[in-house]
């Protein structure tokens, strides 16, 4: 028994290392004498350990799927790939936090501690295989996120962001827990593997209860991935939070929530299950509304952070379309989208962050005439915007193409048309930002301080996959395709 548990631990190295990292960071931070020291060593240490975690995850990609800790946790290529995306996202956010003025100097280590903590929660969520682990993941993820969003503690907007996030989060997590408890009541188990077997036998009242419980459960997840109508918090929280936090929120909790949604969908709505039609119908409608609301609202924004918040809502709407088709191609499309979305989001936030640090605001005006000051950065930002809009030859197009491809394969032409119109709307607002950057003449010749050679190199390195995956997407598709879901 003990031997077996220790054996399982070897599959759990990424999570364990992250927790160790978190605790050691706490100790190191306590040892820092000067409160305003730059904390370079701490950041290098964080990146190194996360790098090892990443390496470990890559090595695990080839592993056969299995359940560990009495079926509480699944380790499969799907969860491993999601964890890789989240780890890279965390590394990116930590790197950004080092330079960003949005994170106060005395809070730099705290940012890393919190981020790694959220990452652990995300990892838990991605490989959750029973309802309790799932809930634990959601809560670990959320509680630390609330703190992160109010990091700029002397600014009202940041405090408001934290408050809003906590209120919404607490409420939706409560509703989700309520749903989960009813599920336990009906199924008599919290283990996914045991619950699946009992689904076909559902009928009458218990079926009705299960349907309502799933709806409640969806509230919790929908809030995490900011799906309509649980997206209201997103723009305020994104705008109020410091930019490194926003970039982190746009990636890690979203991917974790998506992973959980995908897993739950595939566990309970197998071919012919009584839950399939209502659940898939729900996601279909939610997806159409999420992308439409996100994209339409994005048009009128004047703050780039809010714009990216609404656009991220639009992207989530697009991604969850991949769930509707209920097959491995759909998951493949979502995962590919996730990989591409990770790089695009990081670049967009990096550039916004350096500009907003320089000018103290994140309105469109700070982008004015960027092409004349930093042509390479402006071209990269414009490319990323066009990639987000789904234009070839950038990888955003391939991501969109894959989603279209899987839904049209299942002959969902109506939703394909809605998605098509949405991508036209999205192009419009991305183009408005690109236009500000390139068509307008900027005032003054001063260079943006944040674009140091190191930062520019990192941005260019992050841009390589955005371009490369748009032209040669064979290998990344194969990677996403291998990350098939494991249920039984």
């Amino acid at each position, binding site marked *: 028994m003990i031997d077996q548990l220790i054996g399982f631990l070897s599959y759990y190295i990424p999570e364990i290392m992250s927790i160790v990292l978190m605790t050691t960071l706490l100790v190191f931070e306590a040892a820092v004498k000067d409160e305003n020291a730059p904390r370079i060593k701490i950041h290098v240490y964080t990146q190194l350990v996360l790098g090892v975690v990443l390496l470990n995850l890559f090595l695990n990609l080839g592993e056969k799927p299995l359940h560990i800790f009495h079926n509480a946790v699944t380790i499969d290529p799907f969860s491993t790939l999601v964890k890789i995306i989240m780890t890279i996202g965390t590394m990116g956010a930590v790197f950004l936090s080092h330079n960003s003025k949005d994170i106060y100097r005395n809070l730099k280590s705290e940012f890393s501690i919190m981020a790694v903590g959220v990452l652990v929660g995300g990892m838990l969520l991605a490989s959750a295989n029973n309802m309790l682990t799932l809930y634990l993941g959601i809560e670990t993820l959320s509680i630390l996120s609330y703190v992160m969003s109010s990091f700029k503690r002397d600014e009202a907007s940041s405090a408001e962001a934290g408050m809003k996030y906590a209120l919404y989060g607490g409420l939706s997590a409560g509703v989700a827990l309520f749903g989960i408890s009813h599920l336990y009541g009906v199924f008599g188990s919290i283990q996914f593997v045991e619950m699946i077997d009992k689904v076909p036998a559902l009928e009458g009242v218990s079926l009705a209860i299960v349907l309502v419980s799933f709806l409640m459960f969806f509230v919790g997840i929908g809030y995490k991935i900011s799906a309509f109508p649980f997206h209201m918090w997103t723009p305020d929280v994104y705008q109020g939070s410091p930019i490194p936090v926003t970039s982190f929120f746009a990636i890690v909790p979203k991917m974790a929530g998506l992973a959980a949604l995908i897993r739950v969908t595939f566990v309970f709505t197998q071919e012919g299950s009584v839950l399939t039609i209502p659940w898939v119908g729900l996601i279909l409608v939610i997806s159409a509304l999420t992308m439409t609301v996100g994209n339409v609202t994005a048009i009128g924004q004047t703050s780039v952070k809010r714009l990216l918040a609404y656009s991220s809502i639009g992207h989530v709407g697009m991604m969850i379309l991949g769930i509707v088709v209920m097959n491995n191609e759909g998951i493949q499309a979502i995962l590919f989208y996730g990989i591409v979305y990770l790089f695009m989001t990081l670049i967009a936030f990096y550039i916004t962050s350096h500009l907003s640090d320089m000018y103290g605001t994140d309105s469109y005006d700070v982008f004015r005439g960027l092409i004349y000051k930093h042509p390479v950065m402006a071209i990269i930002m414009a490319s990323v915007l*066009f990639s987000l809009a789904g*234009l*070839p*030859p950038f990888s955003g*197009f391939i991501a969109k*193409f894959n989603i*279209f*491809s899987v839904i*049209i*394969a299942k*002959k969902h*032409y*109506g939703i*394909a*048309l809605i998605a*098509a*119109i949405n*991508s*036209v709307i999205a*192009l*419009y607002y991305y*183009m*408005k930002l690109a*236009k500000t950057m*390139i*068509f307008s003449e900027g005032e003054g010749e001063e260079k943006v301080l944040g674009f140091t050679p190191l930062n520019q190199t990192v941005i260019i390195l992050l841009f390589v996959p955005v371009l490369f995956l748009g032209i040669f*997407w*064979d290998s990344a*598709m*194969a990677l996403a395709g291998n990350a098939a879901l494991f249920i039984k």
Partner: protein
Amino acid sequence: MNGILNWILWLPIVGMIAVLVTPKAKEQTIRLLTLFTTTVTLLLSVLLYLKFDTSTADMQFVTKVPWIAQFHINYFIGIDGITMLMAFLNALLFFICTLSSWTIEKNVKAYFALLLMLQSTVFGVFFSLDFFLFYVYWEVMLLPMFFLIGIWGGENREYAAIKFFLYTFFGSIFMLVGIIALYYATGKGADSFNILALQGGKFTELTVDVFGKTFSFEHLFFWFMFLGFAIKVPVFPFHTWLPHAHVQAPTAVSVILAGVLLKMGTYGFLRIAFPIFPMAAVESSTIIAVLGLISVIYGAFCAMAQDDVKKLVAYSSVSHMGFVMLGLAAMTTQGVNGAVLQMFNHGTSTAMMFLLIGILYERSHHRWIVKPDGSRGYGGLSTKLPKYTTVFIIGMFASLGLPGLSGFISEALIFLGIYQKFTTITVIAVIGLLIGAAYLLWMFKRMFFGDVNPEIEEYEDMNGREVFYMLPLCFAVIFFGIFPSPLLNVMKASVGQLVDLLAKF
């Protein structure tokens, strides 16, 4: 042998990279590099014409290399008679545009890099035989256009650039849905993105459900494709982006836009919409003809109402592209031959008009025939600028279809073709020709005749460079007006194949 097509496609990209690595301050080097690239491309396309086998409708100079094996997407390019003409037109116009852009002073490096990128993507659209590749080129083409209009355009350039971009993107996203639907309709096989293999009316039996209603697969996706291409042509009522884009775009970009980009729309009908969905095309031919007719008449009337000479020529493009649509809708040998010929001839004659307006604009810095305050913008140009007037007369008469110049032959062929199918439409369309003559002559009278406007006293006549790049176009409109056979021979086999296919439905 096959490599020549790849050279033509990729040489502009090589040129673009060469321009990008050249230091920004060396503007003359950048211009010469671009000129060198476009010249070599033009020579290669002449070589292509000489090596082209006119006796077959099959694709020639084919290259097929797997790109994304999992989805059976190939790098698959080749040309037939129709593409041959378009490729030559593209090479010629970019060569001329490089010369005409010599006076660009703002951001020379970026301008020429984008121009070369645009040339390569336009070649890509015409050469692609893989639907995915075609779509990628179709979309990528928007990026250089967006920046060329938006950075080097006129006062209202941002609006024009965004409108152009959004309109085309709106059309093409429907096309994307169609492309994917075709991919699955053919069973994801090895030829699912192969444009040639999709042709021939293979989807007449299928149906699709959208929002609970059942449609014919053939008709639904024909109209999806139609939307994508009709916006590009542009066919009424999708033409509203065109005047803005033209008026705001710098001269060279207007030339490319009217000269080749609009042809991509009609080319899409010829290569994709008609051959893949022949039944829907035949059944919709009346609608296409009526839309073409409206474009002809409405475009001509709009042109007549313009005070801005560039806008006038822009609307005349709507009118002339309407003739191409009429020729296509006829679906007869003469009609389609006339349409393809009109695509080429409109490319040369409208390019002349836009270049001439650009030349005049460089001297006057306005384009008003009648200024907003009611005074004359020009007047008496013919006495001051004799060389300019001579070239303008050639371009204008080619444009209005004077016998002996190129426009006449293609329009005559179109009328011959359409008369067999739609007599009434033919009769009304002839009125379009008349209005065309009216607005062009009226414009000519107001600008070139009458008392000499004091404002034009200082204008210089065309310089050597300007004469040099106008000469090939003058030669083309006169020569092909008398001997159209070099063009007709090239396209004969390919057009014949399409007409035969359509005749079966």
